[in-house]
């Protein structure tokens, strides 16, 4: 594959990301619809997709706005939730370290859970590819365009059907999170971490600025680390959200 042109690598990156595009589409629509139901202006929803481009933190921000959390809590939650991107970057760094700085800025901005998954398997097969960064660009730009498009559809959809809010569209977020969480709970430390966070989140929910949410997360992480320590099988596997 090392004789691929930049152009064909770019197209291959887009093509190999298609399943991820399909998977992300409903999340974009749900995000856009939630924006109109939760105090943000439509242009702010699109701005968030354009500039933040990290779906789970966007969902969480919307949920926290709806719960009237403070600005600092939302920013801290964004920080915590998106920290996993550092893991992705650390894993891919060996394949991009030789690139000019502008490429590294661009590719790291375009990195998401999905593109990380695509690039991780690509570099495993083609560790020496001289056009790998074009493949990366194709995958990342395809995800970016896809996310903008489906966010816009959701924004329009939510504006046309404002009664979606009173029907309880927020539950779409609950069920989406369930669909993300449950498949990740196959190993005991993850199950225990989620269980502890869930159990603590309810009684702590009344604390100001949503501090209870952060406490519940910290307790959950503590439980997860303790359980992982007990077992030899304690490899880190960041959840794909």
């Amino acid at each position, binding site marked *: 594959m090392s004789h691929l042109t930049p152009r064909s690598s770019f197209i291959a990156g887009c093509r190999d990301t298609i399943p991820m595009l399909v998977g992300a589409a409903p999340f974009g629509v749900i995000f856009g619809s939630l924006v109109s139901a939760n105090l943000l202006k439509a242009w702010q929803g699109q701005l968030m997709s354009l500039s933040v481009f990290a779906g789970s933190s966007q969902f969480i921000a919307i949920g926290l706005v709806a719960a009237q959390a403070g*600005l600092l809590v939302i920013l801290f939650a964004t920080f915590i939730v*998106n920290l996993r991107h*550092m*893991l992705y970057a650390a894993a891919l760094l060996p394949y991009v370290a030789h690139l000019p700085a502008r490429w590294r800025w661009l590719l790291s901005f375009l990195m998401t859970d999905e593109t990380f998954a695509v690039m991780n398997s690509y570099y495993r097969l083609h560790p020496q590819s001289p056009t790998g960064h074009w493949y990366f660009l194709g995958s990342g730009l395809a995800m970016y365009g896809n996310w903008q498009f489906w966010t816009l559809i959701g924004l329009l959809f939510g504006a046309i059907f404002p009664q979606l809010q009173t029907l309880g569209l927020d539950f779409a977020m*609950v069920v989406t999170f369930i669909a*993300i969480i449950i498949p990740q709970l196959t190993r005991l430390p993850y199950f225990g*971490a989620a269980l*502890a966070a869930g159990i603590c989140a309810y009684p702590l929910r009344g604390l100001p600025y949503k501090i209870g949410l952060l406490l519940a997360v910290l307790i959950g992480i503590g439980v997860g680390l303790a359980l992982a320590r007990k077992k030899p099988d304690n490899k880190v596997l960041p959840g794909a959200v």
Partner: protein
Amino acid sequence: MTATWINTWMIVGMAVITIFIKTVIFVLGDRITLPALLKQALGFVPVTVLTAIIVPMILAPHDKGMEFTWRNPQLVAAVVAVIVSATTRHQLLTIFIGLAVFFGWQLGVLA
């Protein structure tokens, strides 16, 4: 400040934080290494954050105390969604069935 301004600053802040997190390793390269314990802790972040957000929304959807009853459509639909997800591991199917149960329970069973 108006809510619109605060929310705009929230978005700008989120963008700055996220871009910093995403780019710092690629841009600074090998000059940064994450401690092993931090890496391991980060692995637990997605499941704990998402769970901690939704549990209160399911148990107390009206923010007026625990509604641990079959008359709470959030609770019923969430239990069904957990079962569907655990047995099929299919995301879209889980979302569709969960929403169908949620709306069906409100419009059919409780109406």
